[in-house]
């Protein structure tokens, strides 16, 4: 997988779940960026990160009704949808941006989500 995955993590959920993964090999090639809330992740930011050569952007937000800022992850979901539509338009494949709702204590599902994204990116790269 050319370039790494940039994980835009809400500091209340994704960031803590990532921290508890410690140096699990699933985190190889994953660059974590800490945000106050997934609602701070903007569509333009996601596309710019991809432009700079990242293979994928994984936005990690709190599950609905678990968000410290009440609507953050719901906004992030909409912005990821716009980013995916833009990638589809550009013919670059929408799986390069993905949104996952992972709470701070759901370590196994985070590992599974990262594995799923890496597999999707490799599959896409095989095709492209």
């Amino acid at each position, binding site marked *: 997988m050319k370039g790494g995955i940039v994980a835009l993590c809400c500091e209340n959920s994704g960031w803590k779940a990532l921290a508890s993964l410690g140096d699990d090999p699933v985190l190889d090639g994953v660059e974590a960026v800490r945000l106050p809330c997934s609602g701070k992740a*903007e*569509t*333009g930011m996601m*596309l*710019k990160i*991809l*432009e700079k050569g990242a293979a994928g952007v994984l936005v990690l937000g709190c599950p609905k009704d678990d968000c410290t800022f009440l609507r953050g992850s719901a906004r992030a979901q909409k912005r990821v949808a*716009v*980013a995916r539509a*833009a*990638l589809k*338009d*550009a*013919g*670059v494949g929408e799986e390069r941006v993905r949104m996952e709702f992972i709470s701070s204590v759901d370590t196994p599902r985070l590992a599974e989500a990262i594995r799923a994204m890496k597999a999707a990116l490799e599959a896409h790269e095989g095709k*492209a």
Partner: protein
Amino acid sequence: MITAVRKPFDEIRDLVKGYDRLLILGCGTCVTVCMAGGEKEVGILASTLRLADQKDGRSREITEATIERQCDREFFDAVKEKMAAADAVLSMACGVGAQFCGEVFAGKAVLPALNTKFYGTTEGPGVWSARCSGCGTCVIADFGGICPVTRCSKSLLNGPCGGSSKGKCEVDPANIECGWQLIHDRMKLLGRLADLEAVQPLKDWSTGRDGGPGRIVKEDATL
């Protein structure tokens, strides 16, 4: 405000096919409010184009800028150098701004990125709907403050067409309220239902678009 929506990406990509140095110019007023052409949308369109170029192996320089308004000459000064450096400008302003940009920079290829829609209002976050068609002779006073020309799909002035059901217009029952239902309810509310009996005279459409492109001169304001 003037509302607009972005053109489909494939259409935009074809428009800018031949140009190697492209400036995407946003407008900070109406189209920002209706989320079509502000700095955020400029960033998204620019990144999408660059990603598409990367995929096609096409080298192209795409710069971004957003000015206050594209319908006033002086605001373009802020982007003079970027304009000069670009082969073409993809204007994310409404139709007014896109055309005026072409006038201010005569000889520069200016391409529209948006489809301008209507004079509208924000019904709620993310939802805009038309209120006026600029016919040049406002008649809403006779209809309780609701414009039949705009709100009725067939612009009927003397009563409904009868095709509405449950207050929705037959043209698009899901989204369009029947203009005349609105007028009826409002007039009833105002206790002026009887006034609708009056026959509306033939409308002089020449005051609007049908009278040719509009022009206003306010003598005291000319320098």
